[in-house]
């Protein structure tokens, strides 16, 4: 049995497998089917300060080996979350990572303050990369100074582990990783979804009411792995990698590319019972390769023989 623990700032994860934000509700939805305390962490649906309606359906459309979503960050707001969901997550033994959204810099800080005062938040994942909303979010995430500013502002108001979540919709994600590191992040997570669209040729209308959506799922995995690897060369921070992970092999690919932990989003829709197998599969691999700690595998891609 290998040591699967992962350190993200002050937070220790039992293992590197985290449910991705927006793909696991508030975590509690899954508690009747599986033991969510066995996961490395649960990243809950993105939260603004207040409740939010989200976009009109249809909100998803399937694409080759992937899907588009334009949920529009429907959510109950951080106050109701703290009151209604957080205590239950605590009772269930979940390691809770709260995905924080904002339309303005102030809103990010306000949400972070509420969470800092609450009991049972493991870390804040700063969502500056949702492609589905017009104001805030992606505006910060696609600008280096925006990224730096929002991370350093939130850094000032919270001592919770702070994990900016980066967008893949930029020329050079590694530069954003560096901006996040300089601004005081404890870790980074990537990738959020790729801005994309699909059109129904018969009606000539976009398949999503919101026109654009975010592409996720196995389709994007090779791009996400590349970006994690680029960021690994650029920063010392822990990296939480994601994008199309469906099984232990995919998770290991991200870890070898440089991810300290991984998140699983779309694959949970396809197979909500995948968690135990994925964690066991990572452990088996480590045992089979005589690697004592998962941390020892991070970034261990070998290029020598091939380059």
């Amino acid at each position, binding site marked *: 049995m290998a040591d699967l623990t992962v350190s993200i700032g002050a937070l220790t994860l039992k293992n590197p497998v985290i449910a991705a934000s927006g793909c*696991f509700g508030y975590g509690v939805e899954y508690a009747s089917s599986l033991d969510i305390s066995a996961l490395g962490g649960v990243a809950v*649906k993105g939260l603004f300060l207040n409740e939010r309606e989200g976009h009109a*359906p*249809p909100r998803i459309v399937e694409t080759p080996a*992937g899907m588009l*979503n334009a949920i529009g960050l429907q959510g109950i707001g951080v106050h109701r979350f703290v009151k209604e969901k957080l205590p239950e997550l605590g009772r269930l033994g979940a390691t809770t990572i709260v995905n924080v959204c904002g339309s303005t810099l102030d809103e990010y800080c306000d949400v972070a303050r509420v969470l800092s005062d609450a009991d049972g938040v493991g870390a804040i994942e700063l969502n500056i990369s949702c492609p589905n909303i017009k104001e805030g979010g992606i505006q910060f995430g696609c600008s280096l100074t925006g990224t730096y500013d929002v991370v350093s502002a939130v850094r000032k108001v919270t001592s919770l582990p702070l994990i900016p979540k980066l967008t893949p919709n930029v020329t050079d994600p590694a530069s954003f990783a560096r901006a996040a590191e300089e601004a005081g992040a404890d870790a980074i997570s990537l990738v959020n979804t790729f801005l994309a669209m699909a059109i129904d040729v018969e009606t000539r209308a976009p398949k999503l009411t919101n026109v654009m959506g975010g592409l996720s*799922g196995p389709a994007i995995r090779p791009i996400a792995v590349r970006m994690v690897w680029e960021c690994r060369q650029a920063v010392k921070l822990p990296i939480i990698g994601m994008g199309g992970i469906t099984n232990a092999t995919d998770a290991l690919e991200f870890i070898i590319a440089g991810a300290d932990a991984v998140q699983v989003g779309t694959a949970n829709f*396809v197979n909500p019972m995948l968690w135990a197998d994925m964690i066991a599969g990572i452990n088996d691999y480590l045992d089979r390769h005589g690697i004592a700690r998962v941390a020892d595998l991070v970034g261990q891609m070998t290029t020598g023989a091939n380059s």
Partner: protein
Amino acid sequence: MPVDVPAAVVSNLRLTPEYNVLTLAAPEIAKLAAPGQFVMVKTAPGLDPLLRRPFSIFEIMRDPAGAPAGISLLNKRVGVGTTLLYQAEAGDRIDCLGPLGQPFAPVSPPAEGWMVAGGVGLAPFATLAQALKARGTPMTLFYGGRGATDLFYESFFADLGATLVITTEDGSRGEQGRVTSPLERALAGRPADRPVTVYACGPTPMMRAVADLGVRYARATYVSLEPVMGCGMGGCYSCVVRVTRPGGTHFVRSCIEGPVFDATAVVWDALSEGHH
């Protein structure tokens, strides 16, 4: 509560070039299922198509001793996944997650249960009819299709004691026209002191018309909606339907708060018709 099982295909009865009934060995799901619940089905192994598809649990199959042994699905080919289920062969394994969603609440006598099915919307009513029969509740099935070849399992319902009222759009069976016509006559003809609960499943315009009739004749009406669903477990927020709740209207996740809704709570204008 829901379980995920690699269910073996026991049989695949192709009713027409469009419809089939797929029987799956899934005792774990059969045991837990309530009328109107659904399963999320992986229509092919691998990544094409990627997502599961939602299907009402049609019948609960029982072994000779009467124990729940499996479920059947009434499948209509409309695209990639439903075509794969149409082509499935006995022995294939199909991942099946369920049971999911809020079931129908079957009424008890003296109320009657009136089921209104349009096309493949028949699917959730086999289990509901059994539950009504178990309560001794008199029931009627208003069943509409495009033509005679769109109508199935009438004897199943007749054997349970249901009164059948059939309509077809082309007049090839039963009354010509929409299923809502005889429903309206029946509602109009029923004395106010004889309670009725209406249950509807079918195309959105049909369900909306039934909902309107339910309001007009002041009868409790439940609909089983069929929005696109990404996960079926409350994880993705793709399946929302706008409903009236204390304090206003809200998008609620139909996979966990539905698919069965009180028809008066549904904000019908918000249901995008192109996709249902």
